[in-house]
């Protein structure tokens, strides 16, 4: 910086600030790094004392995560040589792989319910946000506040009547039920965020289009939607992350067919208690997509987490 500025911090304070912030960042990453490392440990290494930072990496955790295994007699093992590398890993415990575990299914449920509810929230949310942004709606502020206030209910409190309602409608433990439920929760976020994004698009574009003979509807999807694309994409990612991470409804309302990964991962049992490498492997696979999205979204992060109340 060539000119002197009173508001520019001195080099020394920058160094100290940098040092402190980086130290915090490194400490805060320890649990996440530990999840990653534990996923590649053998069960013995995972629970050794002192905790091992250097170890022989193995894919045991990942194999255990994706398969179910049974113990077999020595004769059976000798008669059936291992077919592939995964077989060889489980052979050290005199076990054979008998089939896939439920993890794949649960993960797919997370994907289906996550994307389904995100699509629906964005679709409904964009329409409502456009109307709130552009038209005179009676009781607009009250309606918007009502939409937001639905977020204040503790999920466990709403879960009681939803549980009864879904039981009566046959939606218990179904993908459709969970998609509708997550849409109901996400839509308040979608409307508030999207309204903010659409408010920022100048009205003049649409007005020009209307004068050129577009109908309102054409102006909406040919002019406004393309302009709002970034906003829609970032809102979608926030909805997706919410649905992906949601636990309370999932654990209370699903048990088998529509159970998502978060209630499932903590229950992966190995020999003598939780199979920590497999749990860590599952967590790694489950968390990495969110981390990637977070990094992609970093510019809109603040807006997303505050329902659009704070914009940068």
């Amino acid at each position, binding site marked *: 910086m060539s000119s002197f500025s009173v508001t520019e911090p001195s080099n020394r304070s920058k160094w100290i600030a940098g040092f402190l*912030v980086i130290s915090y960042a490194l400490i805060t990453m320890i*649990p996440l790094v530990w999840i990653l490392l534990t996923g590649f440990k053998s069960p013995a290494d995972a629970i050794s*004392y002192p905790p091992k930072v250097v170890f022989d990496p193995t894919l045991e955790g990942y194999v255990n995560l994706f398969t179910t295994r049974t113990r077999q007699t020595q004769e059976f093992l000798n008669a059936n040589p291992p077919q592939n590398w995964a077989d060889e890993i489980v052979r050290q415990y005199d076990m054979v792989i008998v089939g896939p575990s439920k993890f794949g299914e649960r993960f797919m449920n997370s994907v289906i319910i996550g994307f389904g509810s995100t699509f629906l929230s964005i679709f409904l949310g964009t*329409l409502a946000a456009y109307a709130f942004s552009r038209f005179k709606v009676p009781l607009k502020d009250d309606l918007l506040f009502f939409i937001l206030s639905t977020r204040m209910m*503790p999920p466990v409190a709403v879960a009681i009547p939803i549980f009864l309602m879904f039981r009566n409608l046959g939606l218990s433990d179904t993908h459709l039920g969970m998609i509708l439920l997550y849409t109901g929760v996400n839509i308040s976020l979608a409307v508030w965020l999207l309204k903010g994004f659409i408010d920022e698009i100048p009205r003049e574009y649409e007005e020009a289009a209307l004068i050129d003979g577009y109908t309102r509807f054409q102006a909406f999807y040919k002019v406004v939607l393309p302009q709002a694309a970034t906003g829609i994409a970032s809102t979608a990612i926030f909805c997706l992350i919410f649905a992906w991470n949601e636990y309370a409804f999932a654990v209370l309302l699903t048990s088998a067919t529509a159970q998502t990964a978060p209630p499932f991962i903590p229950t992966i049992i190995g020999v003598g208690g939780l199979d920590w490498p497999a749990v860590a492997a599952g967590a790694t696979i489950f968390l990495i997509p*969110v981390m990637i999205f977070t990094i992609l979204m970093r510019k809109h992060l603040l807006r997303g987490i505050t329902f659009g109340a704070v914009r940068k």
Partner: protein
Amino acid sequence: MSDRTIDRVAQATPVRAARKIRGLSDRAIAWIFISPTIFLLLAINIFPLIWTIKLSFTNFKANRIGREIKDVGFRNYERILTDSDTWLNMQATAHFLFWTIFFQVLIGFALAWLINKKFRGNDLWTTIIVLPMMLSPAVVGNFWKFLYQPQIGLFNYIIAWFTGKDPSSFEMLGSVQLAPWSIVIVDTWMWTPFVMLICLAGLRSIPDYIYEAAEVDRASKLRQFFTITIPMVLPFLMLAVLFRGIENFKMFDLVVQLTGGGPGSTTELTSINLKREAFEKWRTGYASAYAIILFVTVFGLASIYVKALNRVKQR
């Protein structure tokens, strides 16, 4: 509004022709666009809420469908409010709320203030710090249980390394004294970045010229901090506290995974107690009344707080 070009054009066009040209009227479009959302919210939020209110006056049990449902008046509410366990749960929740917000505000603001010194690479490190808050609380909370294991856990090992204590001599999750703090630590680890990000936005919203003017007036750096920085960031900070307060009042996933409310009921926050009543003891009527009490509490506290927030904003 009426001097907009489009409105003038619209006024000049006969109604029937306008309808032909522009399709549906704006009002009709507005309702077509908004009503599905309102309908969904009514079905997923308001209808259940009304149903909960209705159930809260009965002795209904969801696992016994055939049983006769009796109207019990306000007895559920009476029993909840006079039950000493309720107040223990409220206390546990208050402890959790107070300390998580305290630490998150303190560390979050400090971090934001440091990041605002604009050292090289601050964007990258901000992104890294933010990661924990976007992750699934249930999955991460479950893994913290592993870090908290007395003998093999990394957390105990690191604490033991610094304090010289035996790592198996203390149990973060098993001890009555430590368990309430174990959940505070994880929540603080997870959500400090949230407060940090909001504070950072607040700090960045302060225009440089205010500091320049203060500098011209020879105000000390300390004085500038207390008379410019803090008041300007306060509305942002209060917003962050509002969000964290509501979220932590509802707290369920993280704590259920970490302690499940134990040991005993030392970390049994209100949501966890509610889950026990509703989905383990199946006292649906009682739990519904409990849910209503919680909802009224959050809503009441939040509205009082928002009023205070608006007053600060106007200053």
